[in-house]
């Protein structure tokens, strides 16, 4: 049984088809990347899976259950954690309190939640920031905190929406180690949206490619960059017609990490 199964999912906003007829499955223990140009419907797909939107067609199965149209808090209770591309903190919660809120999903005791949150922050090297307000942190730290809160709910599947956006090279490296740790040591299945190809290509077992709301390719990271439809999606049709051979050659020759950018 797949952990997550999406069948013929479509999402329409008025006349705009943000997702159309998307089907794929994620197995327990996988680390799946989701890429595609801006506006290709990646975040919409995440939001449909995580219950922020109700898909206009198709269905979502999580742990074998049909969860189409479940609300986001219900999905969290079923074991789905997620981060947001843009996170705005309006209130005054500090880092520790933010992570405690995640812990409160599984316990109602404040002292237990605090102990769990402190342990998690220590594991993620965030102890020093525990008393800082989330809104005052630099981007890299903020992304880690949001991830820590999601992890505090002890999810089976973690959806990461552009956790490396806006980070510098060192920070991307740290983020990669963090995702590896989540996947390998916490044994959490991960699905991530990312534009930083280095991260997607070196972490993912499998990559899904979206373009204009459609799933146009699926495969392991090395082979995906050679697919003409993927290159076309990123570089445009005319470019491929003119430079198709060179691009393919370059992609095939280069090690997986440098396929893009």
């Amino acid at each position: 049984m797949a952990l997550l199964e999406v069948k013929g999912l479509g999402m329409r906003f008025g006349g705009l088809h943000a997702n159309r007829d998307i089907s794929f499955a994620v197995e327990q223990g996988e680390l799946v990347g989701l890429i595609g140009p801006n506006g290709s419907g990646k975040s919409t797909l995440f939001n449909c899976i995580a219950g922020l939107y109700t898909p206009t067609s198709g269905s979502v199965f999580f742990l074998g259950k049909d969860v189409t149209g479940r609300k986001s808090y219900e999905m969290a209770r079923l074991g789905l954690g997620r981060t947001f591309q843009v996170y705005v903190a309006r209130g005054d919660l500090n880092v520790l309190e933010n992570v405690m809120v995640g812990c409160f999903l599984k316990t109602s005791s404040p002292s237990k939640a605090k102990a769990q949150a402190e342990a998690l922050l220590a594991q993620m090297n965030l102890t020093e920031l525990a008393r800082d307000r989330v809104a005052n942190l630099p981007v890299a730290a903020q992304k880690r905190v949001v991830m820590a809160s999601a992890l505090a709910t002890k999810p089976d599947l973690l959806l990461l929406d552009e956790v490396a956006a806006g980070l510098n090279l060192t920070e991307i490296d740290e983020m990669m180690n963090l995702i590896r740790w989540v996947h390998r040591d916490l044994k959490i299945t991960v699905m991530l949206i990312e534009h930083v190809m280095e991260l997607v290509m070196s972490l993912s077992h499998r990559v899904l490619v979206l373009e204009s709301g459609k799933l146009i390719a699926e495969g392991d990271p090395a082979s995906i960059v050679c697919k003409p439809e993927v290159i076309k999606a990123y570089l445009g049709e005319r470019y491929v017609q003119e430079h198709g051979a060179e691009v393919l050659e370059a992609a095939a020759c280069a090690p997986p990490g440098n396929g893009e950018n």
Partner: protein
Amino acid sequence: MEALRSAFDFSDFPRTDLCVAGTVAVFLLIFPLLPHSSFAMATMIQFLMFSVYGMGWNTIGGYGGQVDLGKAQYVGIGAYTSAVMMIRWDVPFWVSLPVGMALAVAWSFIIGYPLFRLTGHYFAIATIATSLILKDLFESWSFVGAARGLKIPIKGEMPNFLYLQFRQDAYYYYVILGFFFVGLFYLNWFRKSRIGYQLRCIKDNEEMARSLGIDSHWAKIKAYAVATAFVAAVGSFHACYNFNIEPEDTMSLDLSVLIALMAMLGGAGSLWGPIIGAAVLVPMKNYLGAFFGAKAGLVGLDLIIYASIIMVIAAFEPRGIWGLITRLRQGRGS
């Protein structure tokens, strides 16, 4: 057990706060023994009443960030329940108190369920509307005395602890002081409890809160019910203290705004905020009202002052006086 310990645990506040709080607590306990005018006593009782109103408002309005401008309807439900039960069926205050709270909470669920589909200004406006509708209903409902209201008759000998009828205000003072401390300890538990953190997370970012498994709609309704219970309890007390209630003084928009204003002025979302707000505004309201209203005939002046305060808070420090204190401290610390 953990909850009880948490309610009495103030250890996360700096020592200066606790010293000030302790001094204030002692002052409140011995105030009736000090020489005072009856006007000062009435002001102190009002201060305590508005502190408890503000504490209630703080759960949903402060920690939850949902600006509620309709609390007076629950004051009314509490006050009318106690008055009606006392007048018609001779029921003691201590029985009608929980009944009034329960009725108010039930009404808050009915109101809260659709209202919390709204957010921000729309929510605030809708709370005003429901409160005014209820006031209109009470004004034309003869069972509760319509617009003339109700007058509670004297029940036998005073002091009467069962019906809360006293000749000396000091008795009322200690009753409401009891409410005040119960409210304070409850709120001290609340802010560190699961629901307290969940509400603060909702205020922070509702979408994020929901992704962490919080049913934000239900959490708000629960906090609204807690706020309502506080307010209704003081409403019941208000009926006994005044002997005389009418829709205009228990359910008016003025009262709703004052409740929210005191909490916001003191500091919404902090434990001491509503108390500070009430300590500033109640004496100001009473003494300025007496001074200007009687001597100069400037009846609307207090309203002008409230409006100015709202503007100043909104423009300079949304976290109120407590926010100002916090900012000064942080400035000195760094």
